[in-house]
């Protein structure tokens, strides 16, 4: 046991070797070094800058990891003295929340009904979730939103909640529950495949999912039920998106397609519970949430059954008696102090840099991306404004490849479930930054709101509505052009 007894020593009394007499050479070296330091010259570390597509997709917050940790790093410009907040928040994001009561009293209160017990379980390694591979496969990283059409009496609730919750099941199917409480149901997915032939005669198989809910726990849901499947999105760059000035986003909006380019672009106007007023929606597949903070509290409440000062009630419906009677993990279950750390973490997950490993092909792909009209919605560049809670995110030139606006994506992608001002066929343009590392981070990652696309090419081919012309031009591309386009996307 002696080997791990403490080594107690006063550091200053231990011997140190010192350098011998000064040589002229080292004086000169020192002088040169001093000159270097005084001139403020730091060794240049980046490739020659490309004016339109800098490698630093997230400005000074950008990180350069290309491993499976690429989505899990703090913004690079957070000083080391502030990084503990990121790692503390991250721990609460990763570690399981437990059923109350528990000795872990700051992290109990899971459920009574929920989808999963960790954030990381859906945002896999801070990246995307995925659609279940088949009927009985795990569907943890995908959830089903529920609602019914508004009536005259309930229409007024739309302004705050965006959709009318189902009277028996609420706004989201919770397929897990603590012991003694019946889960709301179980998701089953089946796929039908069809082939798309491209102009160069190559064939791509697309799979269309059909989501069914089995084993309803609280009776038949009725004919009015509307459902929408949603896969967990990646966590990168969320604070930067929050810091984009509202006017800059509005500038891209063209609700009535006044410029006649076939692309509308609408702002989703949603409810901000923190300010008790309407706000611009930025997060979620239909931009139903205005801020990282509200998105976080809503996910704690809906996905994990955890109350917060913002949403102090568990999501139990009147018929769900066992749910209403279950033990609480505290009032609220997620304290403001812990919430603050998780929000800090969620705002500061860094975006990985672009990789220029095939510069010529990627440049060609980028030109094709623009020529095909993709950049009409996937807006390459923004400059962030002042973010008062997150100074490291302010004033950054970023390349998210999103306009954060709603677009009609056509019948094939439609969920026919409106959310605030988003129609049943409108979706918010998802950011493309970091997308080339999606499968490095999680090999199972899938794309689009319900995870139907297994590859980026499949995702492109599902684009319809306003994006149909862009999609068609990709179909018409030669193999080399298509590969260049994908090489560009994979460089992001």
């Amino acid at each position, binding site marked *: 046991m002696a*080997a*791990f007894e*403490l080594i107690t020593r006063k*550091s200053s009394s231990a*011997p*140190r*070797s*010192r*350098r*011998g*007499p*000064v040589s002229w050479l080292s*004086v000169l*070296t*020192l002088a040169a*070094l001093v000159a270097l*330091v005084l001139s403020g010259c*730091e*060794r*240049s*570390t*980046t*490739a020659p800058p490309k004016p339109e597509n800098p*490698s630093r997709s997230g400005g000074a917050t950008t990180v*350069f990891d290309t491993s499976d940790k690429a989505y899990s790093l*703090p913004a*690079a*410009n957070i000083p*080391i*003295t502030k990084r*503990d*907040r990121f*790692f*503390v928040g991250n*721990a*609460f994001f*990763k*570690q*399981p929340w*437990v059923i109350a009561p528990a*000795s*872990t*009293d*700051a*992290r109990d209160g899971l459920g009574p009904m929920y989808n*999963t*017990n*960790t954030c*990381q*379980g*859906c945002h896999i*390694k801070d990246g995307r979730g995925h659609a279940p*591979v088949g009927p009985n*496969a795990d569907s*943890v*990283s995908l959830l089903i939103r529920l609602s019914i059409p508004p009536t005259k009496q309930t229409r007024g609730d739309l302004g705050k909640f965006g959709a009318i919750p189902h009277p028996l099941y609420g706004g989201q199917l919770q397929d897990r529950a603590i012991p003694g409480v019946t889960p709301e149901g179980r998701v089953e997915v089946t796929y039908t495949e069809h082939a798309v032939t491209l102009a160069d005669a190559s064939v791509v198989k697309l799979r269309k999912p059909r989501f069914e809910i089995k084993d309803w726990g609280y009776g038949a849901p009725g004919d009015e039920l509307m459902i929408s499947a949603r896969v967990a999105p990646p966590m990168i760059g969320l604070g930067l998106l929050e810091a984009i000035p509202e006017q800059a986003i509005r500038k891209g909006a063209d609700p009535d397609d006044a410029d006649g380019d076939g692309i509308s672009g609408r702002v989703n106007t949603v409810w901000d519970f923190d300010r008790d007023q309407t706000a611009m929606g930025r997060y979620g597949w239909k931009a139903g949430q205005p801020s990282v903070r509200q998105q976080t509290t809503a996910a704690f409440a809906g996905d994990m059954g955890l109350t917060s000062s913002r949403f102090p009630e568990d999501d139990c419906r009147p018929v769900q008696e066992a749910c209403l009677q279950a033990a609480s993990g505290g009032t609220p279950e997620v304290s403001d*102090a*812990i919430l603050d750390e998780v929000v800090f973490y969620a705002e500061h997950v860094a975006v990985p*840099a672009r990789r220029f490993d095939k510069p010529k092909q990627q440049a060609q792909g980028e030109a094709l991306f623009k020529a095909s009209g993709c950049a009409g919605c996937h807006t390459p560049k923004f400059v962030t404004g002042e973010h008062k809670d997150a100074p490291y995110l302010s004033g950054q030139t970023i390349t998210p490849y999103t306009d954060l606006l709603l677009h009609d994506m056509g019948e094939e992608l439609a969920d026919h479930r409106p959310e605030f001002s988003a129609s049943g066929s409108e979706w918010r343009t998802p950011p493309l930054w970091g997308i080339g590392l999606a499968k490095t981070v999680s090999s*199972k990652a899938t794309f689009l709101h319900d995870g139907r696309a297994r590859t980026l090419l499949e995702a492109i081919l599902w684009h319809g509505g306003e994006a149909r012309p862009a999609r068609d031009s990709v179909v018409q591309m030669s193999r080399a052009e298509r590969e260049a386009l994908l090489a560009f996307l994979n460089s992001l």
Partner: protein
Amino acid sequence: MPKSARLVVIGLCALVIAALLWWVGPRGAGPVAPQPVIEQYAELAHAVYADSLLAAHDLHDAVNLFTANPSGETLAKARSAWRTARVPYMQSEVFRFGNPPVDAWEGQVNAWPLDEGLIDYVATSYVYEQGNNAAQANLIASPSLQIGGETVDATELTPKLLADLNEIGGSEANVATGYHAIEFLLWGQDLNGTNAGAGERPYTDYVDDPEICTDGEQKAPVSHCQRRIQYLQAATELLINDLEYMVGLWAPNVADNYRAKFVNELPENEALRRILFGMGSLALGELAGERMKVALIAHSTEDEHDCFSDNTHNSHYYDALGIANVYHGQYERRDGSLVSGPSVEDLLTDSDHQAAAELDAAMETALTDLNELVQSAKQGQHFDQLISSGNATGNKKVQAAIDSLVELAGEIQRASGLVGISKLQPDNAGHEF
């Protein structure tokens, strides 16, 4: 001029030149250049990983002794060897942050926290990440695994198979290798919550006899004990392989290893930045933040670092001692010898004597406060009790250690500016290694 007068003039000239030289050169012991400090840092890294490797060999010997002759006594020896192996390894963690190849390698060696149900039996109260298909795989009981549609043949528990099982199914909580997997195999789950006591795995879990073999309190098929023996040996062998690799990265006089590139190719400022970033990151983000503050505010033993063995106090202390080692340019090896040379402290003293003394004081305070946790454990109150929600005195001790680490990180950041590192940030694309 007479010969004697000429000699006097030459002598005077020599004196003047000497005086000039003295005047031109900085005061005190002479100026400190970054390069020897960088070289000494690499020397320390090599020594601490070499010690970690030696200690892992001792652990392997103790594991072999235990599995060949399972008894309460041989199990205690294996546990003691594990604790001893943590002493140099925890002092090496300061090299993990800032040096990309170390950070990339670390997951297989020290990943934490883990869903231990992947490895072996667990209590019904076991909490794991839902959706993690492997969280209840129980490799000891299952020669074949079905994980998320993937079938894994685990008939032979080899080092390679264990390494491949890390993060299987995409969950970071699936950790099949490294110190904490071995810790779990030696101790089992600590089911005492925030009360006294560590894991209490009985030695009979390793008895290759159908009459005796157990899964904890229950009788078990002898294959479980056989597989546990195989697992423990494979995991220890893998640890040795991994540490050999890391010793190789830092070995002196190798043409193209990481050390050669670090010492010879990196611009001095970049090497210093990695050194200081490693010290600051370990102090604040990792140690004060993820390993202490989370456990404290959640009052959660699930967030305790060495949770099976209740060795957390030592892990934390030696982590901090590693930071002090780098600052002082010295490391006391397991054989008692001292590796010592030009240090970050020398460099800082040269540019700001006061700042160096203040960093030194912050370092000492952090070590003293972490030592409080060690002393508390010696008196029977371990880290998992100190963080319990009813233990105000214990909470205060942990909070004091966190606060002093925060202070230390601030001093390290200030020191960086003083030695010419304007941005203390992680590595960027400029350097491929």
